[in-house]
């Protein structure tokens, strides 16, 4: 029945507390300075000593070894985590040992130099990622950083000091830190420390002082650092009040291009967004010539987008022919109030400046235009790429053939003397055709030039020379040249546009197809199989899908044909997937985390909950940003489908549970009612005997005792039925099925019925062939007993009752047939739901409804079927069939 072991409330409370502390994130404290040598590490260690003396569990995770001796003295007494030695290109590098720290799980850990880049082969590319993991594990972290390492300030510091700093930390780490402690000394004092060789070794100090540590630089750096710290303080003061309003107030958009100067725009926008506390987005417009981007430009585009992402921007990729129109459209739709663009220096033909177009399109939005110091170079580069310089023999041949054809045709016209003006038309037609059938601009433009020259040479007096007598001809040449060039440019553009449209169409088509199929797919495994199939088809890479990489289950692998992708099943690959699942971030090949993995892993996240991880083999090269983007779209679809599945599963479970609850309630009501009748009988009969011991005649006493016996017998059978229900109450899973011979079960049931009704006329028929099938024998016996008891009760004149077993191809059918009164028609539909016969008075309710409803639950739990029907020649047949799934008969 009920499980007696009730959970102890204290135990539950403890568990709750534990999970609370587990889920709590650690606190981050940053010691912030404006230059090396201001004393960040010293301050950090000083505070750690203080904590240690107060009994805190402090661990020195990593302290830069070049730290000054007086600072190192402060380490005394604090346990130090040994560094991890990583050998890279024969150099032994000491790195922070993240895994050891996670294993030790101290309360507070000290990790110096937040901006550090880890050696290749570490799990994370950057130390701040290590710190994030520590925080996620609930460990408090103390760390240090200098102002020039903060991403959004990086370019300003670079401008001042003329030294580029590559190691940066995203602003959100700084902004989300729980405490910031600014460490400050006068620049003069710092310079004095330099002079004394306290910061760098003397040989390096001299170089540093000349380049970086000039008094001027230090003063500026100090100001920037102070301002950053002050900004944060004012935020802390305001954020409480404004957090809720911020999204509705305004929005900032920065336009990113594939030029290196965009980085400046992005940083500026990030600072603006931070200052005004507004959300911001970076938009990149994929223009139609995207294919023509040079490798370097692709790289810049990449790094710009990554930079924006690190600085906390939402990344938006649009595509369209007209960049300004696309941005304006997006800005209007998403309620952007401020746009940041770079000033374009070159003006193109007949086209207004980009920013002017933007202003014209968006009169109500503030546009911030920033000067673009390197714009000229990059623009020239951009202009240059418009002409595609690529020779192809076929195209050259086609162009020449067209021009020869045009010249020939013009000669024909000349021969028939059909107007000079038509030659020009013929040549322009030729240029048009050439632009259409060749790739790029080159052939169109070259053909224009050649057309003009050929026209001049062959058809202008003096013939066969490049000079012209008539003064009007240079104008003709010019117009002809321009017309030819414009025609060729337009044609090329139309072609590119068509190509882009086709590609976009394909992509949308694919997504739509996936979406449609997902909608029609039910069941987690089917969804996964579908996603895998599409991913393999689209990316031509082997793919693995985990629903729970932290658990024991293996992922679902689908390899590209002819490829052995078993390596994806390896434990270390699974560990990467596990990391990805837990941290909800991309990991593996081509990312910053665990880049040594053989595959790229992307989490499938829906509403902040990880539903799975998809991994794409990177054996034959890493994924491009475009592919990742597309994969993200597919994964989003998968996440939606999986979540839908999870929800519908939960709903079904809830429905089944409530159905069960309802059934149980019905049963209980029916039982309580039914139990009362025999108990009243027993009580009445026994008290009659007790109270009238002497007066009752022996015959009467015997009758009463018999009544008691019958009623208790009935009660016991009822209880046995109820016990059967508890045996199956957990659903079919708890059934202990064994192979049983059908005839043994039948014979047992019959012998029990015979004990109870010695006069019953029961005939048993079983086939000669031994029928063995899996079942819970006790329960099936109970079903047979209930059916036979029913038959005996409704039988008339001791007519025979037949019990049969029949073997079918996939199942075995058991039947109990009687020649009684049959089943009332109105009861037939409710026979097995415990309600039948309820209206017909107390007697028929006894064991009729409940017995049959129990039979049905037992047969259901065996995945069988139960039914009842009236016979043609009177009486009824109750029957059920059980599947012969496992264990085929020996004979």
């Amino acid at each position, binding site marked *: 029945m009920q499980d007696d072991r009730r959970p102890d409330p204290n135990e539950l409370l403890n568990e709750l507390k534990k999970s609370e502390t587990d889920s709590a994130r650690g606190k981050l404290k940053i010691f912030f300075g404006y230059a090396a040598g201001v004393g960040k590490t010293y301050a950090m260690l000083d505070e750690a000593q203080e904590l240690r003396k107060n009994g805190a569990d402090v661990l020195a995770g990593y302290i830069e070894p070049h730290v000054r001796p007086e600072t190192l003295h402060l380490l005394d007494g604090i346990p130090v985590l040994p560094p991890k030695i990583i050998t890279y290109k024969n150099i032994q590098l000491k790195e922070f040992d993240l895994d050891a720290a996670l294993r030790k799980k101290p309360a507070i850990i000290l990790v110096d130099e937040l901006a550090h880049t880890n050696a290749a082969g570490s799990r994370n590319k950057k130390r701040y990622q290590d710190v994030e993991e520590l925080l996620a594990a609930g460990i408090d972290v103390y760390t240090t950083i200098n102002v020039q390492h903060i991403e959004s300030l990086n370019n300003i510091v670079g401008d001042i000091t003329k030294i580029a700093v590559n190691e940066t930390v995203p602003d959100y780490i700084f902004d989300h830190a729980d405490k910031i402690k600014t460490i400050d000394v006068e620049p003069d004092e710092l310079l004095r420390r330099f002079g004394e060789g306290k910061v760098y070794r003397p040989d390096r100090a001299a170089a540093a002082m000349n380049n970086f540590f000039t008094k001027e630089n230090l003063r500026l750096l100090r100001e920037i650092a102070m301002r950053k710290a002050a900004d944060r303080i004012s935020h802390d003061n305001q954020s409480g009040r404004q957090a809720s309003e911020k999204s509705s107030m305004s929005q900032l958009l920065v336009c990113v291009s594939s030029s290196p100067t965009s980085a400046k725009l992005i940083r500026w926008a990030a600072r603006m967004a931070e200052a005004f506390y507004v959300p911001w987005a970076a938009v990149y417009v994929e223009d139609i010539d995207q294919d023509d981007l040079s490798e370097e430009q692709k790289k810049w585009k990449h790094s710009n987008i990554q930079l924006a992402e690190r600085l906390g921007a939402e990344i938006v990729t649009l595509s369209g022919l007209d960049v300004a129109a696309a941005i304006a459209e997006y800005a209007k739709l998403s309620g952007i109030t401020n746009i940041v663009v770079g000033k374009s220096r070159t003006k193109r033909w007949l086209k207004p400046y980009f920013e002017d177009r933007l202003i014209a399109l968006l009169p109500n939005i503030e546009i911030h235009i920033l000067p673009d110091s390197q714009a000229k170079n990059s623009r020239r580069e951009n202009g240059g790429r418009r002409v595609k310089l690529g020779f192809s023999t076929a195209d050259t041949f086609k162009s020449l053939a067209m021009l020869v054809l045009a010249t020939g045709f013009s000669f024909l016209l000349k021969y028939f003397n059909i107007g000079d003006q038509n030659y020009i038309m013929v040549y322009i037609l030729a240029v048009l055709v050439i632009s259409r059938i060749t790739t790029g601009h080159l052939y169109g433009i070259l053909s224009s030039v050649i057309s003009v020259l050929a026209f001049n040479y062959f058809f202008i007096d003096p013939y066969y020379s490049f000079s012209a007598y008539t003064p009007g001809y240079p104008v003709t040449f010019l117009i002809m040249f321009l017309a030819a060039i414009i025609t060729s440019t337009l044609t090329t553009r139309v072609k590119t546009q068509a190509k882009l449209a086709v590609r976009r169409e394909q992509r949308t088509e694919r997504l739509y197809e996936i979406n449609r199929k997902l909608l029609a797919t039910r069941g987690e495994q089917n969804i996964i199989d579908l996603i895998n199939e599409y991913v393999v088809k689209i990316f031509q890479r082997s793919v693995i899908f985990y629903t729970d990489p932290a658990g024991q289950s293996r992922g679902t692998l689908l390899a590209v044909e002819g490829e052995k992708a078993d390596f994806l099943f390896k434990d270390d690959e699974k560990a990467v997937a596990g990391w990805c699942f837990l941290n909800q971030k991309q990991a593996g090949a081509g990312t910053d985390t665990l880049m040594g993995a053989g595959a790229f892993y992307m989490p499938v996240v829906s509403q902040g909950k990880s539903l799975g991880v998809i991994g794409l083999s990177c054996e034959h090269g890493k994924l491009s940003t475009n592919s990742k983007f597309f994969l993200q779209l597919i994964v989003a679809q998968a996440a939606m489908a999986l979540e839908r599945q999870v929800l519908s599963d939960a709903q079904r479970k809830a429905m089944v549970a409530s159905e069960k609850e309802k059934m149980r309630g019905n049963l209980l009501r029916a039982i309580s009612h039914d139990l009362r009748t025999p108990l009243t009988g027993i009580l009445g009969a026994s008290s009659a005997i007790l109270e009238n011991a002497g007066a009752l005649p022996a015959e009467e006493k015997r009758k009463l005792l018999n009544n008691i016996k019958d009623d208790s017998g009935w009660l016991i059978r009822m209880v*046995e039925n109820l016990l*059967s229900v508890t045996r199956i109450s957990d659903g079919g899973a708890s059934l202990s099925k064994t192979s049983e*011979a059908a*005839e043994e079960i039948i014979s047992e049931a019959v*012998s029990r019925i015979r004990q109870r009704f010695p006069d019953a006329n029961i005939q048993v028929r079983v086939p000669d062939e*031994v029928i063995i099938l899996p079942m819970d024998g*006790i329960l099936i016996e109970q079903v047979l007993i209930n059916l036979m008891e029913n038959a005996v009760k409704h039988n008339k004149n001791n007519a025979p009752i037949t*019990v049969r077993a029949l073997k079918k191809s996939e199942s075995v059918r058991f039947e109990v047939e009687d020649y009684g009164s049959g089943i009332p028609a109105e009861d037939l539909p409710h026979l097995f739901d415990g309600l039948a016969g309820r209206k017909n008075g107390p007697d028929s309710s006894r064991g009729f409804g409940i017995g049959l409803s129990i039979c049905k639950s037992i047969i259901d739990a065996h995945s069988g079927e139960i039914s009842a029907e009236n016979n043609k020649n009177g009486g009824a047949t109750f029957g059920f069939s059980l599947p012969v799934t496992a264990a085929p008969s020996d004979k």
Partner: protein
Amino acid sequence: MNKPLILIVEDEGTISHFMASMLASNGYRSVKAESGKEALAMAASYMPDLLLLDLGLPDMDGIEALKALRLWTDKPVIVVSARGHEREKVEALDLGADDYITKPFGTSELLARIRTALRHSQATGAKEAPGAFAVGDLRIDLEKRVVSLSGREVHFTPIEYRLLVLLSRHAGKVLTHDFIIREIWGPYANESQALRVNMANIRRKIEANPAEPRYILTEIGVGYRMAEEYTGC
């Protein structure tokens, strides 16, 4: 001969009371114990001829009590258990219980079990191996290895014959599936399917209607029992 002494181990007063009065009126003496510890102490001091052991005891698992008893006595133990607890019964039988009876039971059923158990314990004491076994129309001549039904010889496969002999040697007593399989096919065998098929075939040879057997009875979820007294029909 003295009246046999029976120790009733049962914590429910009404049940032990009715058992005691029934035993008394059928020529047995009885003592009652209400807990496992008490039962073990009384078994040692009274040295009863038979124990009726309820498996649901307040202070210890009946199975544990059985194990403790079997360390020093081989007096027959009949386990009293509820329907549906087949695994418990099998465990008790495998641990050396002689028989079991399912609650609720009638007086005649209980008395029959007690009679059988007592007879077996006396027989094993005598250690004589009878040359033949007979019940109803069935006769097994162990020396000639011949089985006959109403005087006519019936043929069996070697395994069927061994099964029949095994059951007849323990007639009246339940043999668990595992025990039979171990005896016939040896340890580590998993021949539950074969056992049922062989049993069905034996029935087809000796029973008038295999679905209403009179010689070999099935105890669902536990095992088989060879009838000791022919009950007729």
